């Protein structure tokens, strides 16, 4: 059993949603969708399984932020990509588990203003102190997109229901779906009328 299948089993056993990904298309072997409060439990499992931290970053989306954690393995070919959506701009730190996360979280805080709770030292790292509130990677409202629009379409159906944004996305989907239905109806109707 390869490490990625084993990991998916372990994670699913503790109610963390994990699926094996298509490495050739996505560049990682396991995709994990976390709830905001599962981040610490998840990274403890990763440390036990001897993974190393690749990076921590965030993506600015309509409903808040999507924190992205990527892990790799030194002995086996296994990359793990974990995503957690946070709506209030806070997420728990993992820098006491993976010490390397310290700087990655500080950088993410610099660029996005995402607060990592219980982080020991969350001051500016790369930006100047004067620009601490600049958060350069925040997007303007007209460029902001919903989570649905930046995720792979096959996967969006498998995702756990995620409240407000998903409702909005569902609405969009309904809107999109409706005209299609109408057009189909029309197409069906037209020959009926002509005949």
């Amino acid at each position: 059993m390869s490490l990625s299948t084993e990991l998916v089993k372990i994670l699913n056993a503790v109610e963390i949603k994990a699926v094996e990904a298509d490495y050739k298309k996505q560049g990682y072997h396991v995709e994990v969708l976390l709830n905001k409060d599962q981040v610490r439990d998840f990274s403890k499992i990763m440390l036990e399984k001897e993974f190393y931290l690749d990076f921590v970053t965030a993506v600015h989306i309509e409903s808040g932020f999507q924190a992205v954690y990527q892990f790799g393995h030194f002995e086996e070919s296994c990359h793990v990509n974990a995503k957690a959506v946070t709506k209030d701009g806070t997420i728990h730190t993992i820098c006491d588990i993976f010490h390397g996360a310290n700087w990655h979280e500080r950088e993410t805080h610099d660029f996005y203003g995402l607060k990592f709770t219980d982080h020991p030292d969350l001051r500016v790292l790369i930006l100047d102190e004067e620009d601490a509130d600049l958060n350069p990677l925040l997007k303007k409202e007209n460029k902001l997109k919903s989570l649905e629009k930046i995720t792979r379409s096959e996967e969006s159906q498998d995702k756990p229901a995620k409240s407000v944004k998903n409702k909005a996305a569902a609405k969009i989907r309904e809107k999109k779906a409706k005209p299609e239905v109408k057009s189909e109806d029309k197409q069906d109707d037209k020959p009926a009328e002509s005949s």
Partner: protein
Amino acid sequence: MGTLTTRFSTIQDPDEKHKFLLNMGPQHPCTHGVLRIVLEMDGEYAMGIDPILGYGHRMHEKMAECRQWSGFYPNTGRIDYGGAIPYNHGYCALIERMAGIEVPERAEYIRVITVELNRIASHFLGVGAYVIDLGAFTPILYMFDDREDILDALEDITGSRLTYCHHRVGGVSKDIDDLFIKRTRAIIKNIRSRFDMYDRLVTGNIIFQKRTKDVGIIPVEMARRYGATGPVLRGSGLGFDIRKNEPYSVYPEFDFDIPTGENGDAFDRYMVRMLELEQSLRIIEQALDKLPDGPVMAKVKRVKLQPGDCSFSVEAARGMLTYYLVGDGSNVPYKLKIRVPSYSNLSLLEELCKGSLIADLVSAMGSLDLIIPEIDR
């Protein structure tokens, strides 16, 4: 700046009265001009280490979000100016993986040849600068002599000497010719003949050995917690290399070894770099022998970045480089994260050098082979 200063100003404990702050850099030669480290000194021992980054910050990630993906080509060569071609390669390979583009075989071989030549040039720069940090001035001149040949050869096909922009999505921008192949074979022969000289000049030098052996020991477990990769990790005895572990491009077709150290000290990291030169030469030699004919550029239709994320890792000269891209269906990346190896490698400095002599700090830091603008991005 930062908590160290505030901590210092509030020191009340009479036992700590003799402590003082020392600003190492940004002008210190060992910090390469763009890194400042605030040290809390107790005599000659560094008790607190606080690197302050951002002097070379250019916000490449924002630039990527503000232009079409093709406009990011020149930026990739400017993140790590010591070894720029792996960065070119990683970015092109990422877009290819996202759009499902097949690259002609000859183009892949040319990519590997240029990447490995650049890796050698980068290791010469890194080792030369490291030895200069330790006070030996001459070796860098010999190393730059060899590096110069490589830069000349690379200039002949890429058009530039340092900030290359040669790889393109679907292939490479310029084919190599017989002159380049002849020249590269001469370079390989020349560098091989100089290894013995480097052994006599640097490796065997007693002062160099005393400055580097048992200094800055990184256990594998510590490297894992911090995500250190590249020669820093391999010096600790773990042969992790993306070229072997997650083969990309045409690397599986070549026969090469991953040199590793034993103790994880500064000397081992230096030795890993020197041994990697030989492995890179082997890869180039095999690639030149096997070089197939054919086109160097695939036909690429207009690429749109489909919704969804994608990551690509390559082995850059300093460790694992990961590009992580989130697309939204347009041709402008929604998010691009560049995971640079030096960033994680530097973050372990505080734990590595706490309580060590300042001279050992210089030695340990130099052995990490940092390119600071790569960290700042």
